């Protein structure tokens, strides 16, 4: 059995090498990968979408349906984790002598796996507001500079985790009000469905954005709505994933 595994790795390596050896070397501007769809996005993207960051343009406008499925995927992950019973509660006390589970956060029980040094706590508190501003900026400026809804969600999520580690999960949980959670976590898929329908009504194509100059403000509003949906929805989902895993 062990040899089978090793043989698999060797075969995979050999096959991959054969396949990869055949590719054109990376970085050449005239490779087919750069002269087809990507070239068109780079050429006309700014005019067609009004966004200077073409990654955001691809994510939201050209391949918006992919991003819809992406937010659905992370939503399913949350639902899946919530659907599973809590490991700790599954066997309350049936006489097993394992030590009580360790915890990462400050007021967790018994032993702590990683103790948070006061220096780290201080730095997190010091930098917290700046990280939040950075996340907001990456959301707001996502169409002209690196960033966008999802990156902003990721930064907010990471910030939430940092706060929970330093200040304890109870205080961090206040950031995501319990009553609003079911609504906030649904924001991603819902904002897409909603804006997609608005686009359908305005342009005749689902997930379409009005392209004419007159509708500039409207398009801007639609993009912001979707971006905020992704950012808030994603951040709330990441925060809840953390809280669910934390126990």
């Amino acid at each position, binding site marked *: 059995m062990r040899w089978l595994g090793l043989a698999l790795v060797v075969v995979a390596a050999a096959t991959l090498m054969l396949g990869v050896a055949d590719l054109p070397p990376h970085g050449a501007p005239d490779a087919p990968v750069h002269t087809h769809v990507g070239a068109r996005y780079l050429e006309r993207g700014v005019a067609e979408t009004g966004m200077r960051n073409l990654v955001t343009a691809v994510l939201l406008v050209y391949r918006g349906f992919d991003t819809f499925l992406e937010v659905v995927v992370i939503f399913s992950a949350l639902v899946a984790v919530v659907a599973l019973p809590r490991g700790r509660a599954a066997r309350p006390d049936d006489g097993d002598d394992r030590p009580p589970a360790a915890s990462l956060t400050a007021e967790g029980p018994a032993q702590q796996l990683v103790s948070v040094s006061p220096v780290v706590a201080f730095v997190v508190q010091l930098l917290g507001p700046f990280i939040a501003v950075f996340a907001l900026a990456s959301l707001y400026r996502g169409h002209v500079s690196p960033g*966008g809804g999802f990156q902003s969600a990721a930064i907010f999520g*990471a910030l939430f985790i940092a706060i929970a580690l330093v200040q304890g999960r109870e205080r961090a949980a206040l950031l995501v009000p319990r009553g609003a959670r079911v609504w906030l976590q649904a924001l991603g898929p819902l904002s897409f469905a909603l804006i997609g329908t608005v686009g359908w009504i305005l342009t005749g194509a689902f997930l379409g954005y009005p392209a004419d100059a007159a509708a500039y403000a409207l398009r801007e509003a639609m993009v912001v709505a979707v971006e905020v949906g992704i950012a808030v929805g994603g951040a709330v989902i990441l925060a809840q994933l*953390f809280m669910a895993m934390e126990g």
Partner: protein
Amino acid sequence: MSQLFDALLLLLLISTAITVVRATDLVAAVVKFGLYSLMMCVLWQHRGAPDVAIAEAAVGAGVTSVLFLLTVARTTRVEKP
């Protein structure tokens, strides 16, 4: 210079990945994996993908590692040989 930097980074990435394989302390393995993700994010920044680098830094190195650590905390810390 740039090519040298790239080659060095790739070598570091591979050696870090190997240390993840070899670590028997799971906390160490996870931390090394976080390091691996961070280096990957430097590589991508260098390759003209700042958007991806931001996401990888926050998700790959940040959230994923923390979720792993939470699991280690609730299961076991030592990998049996």
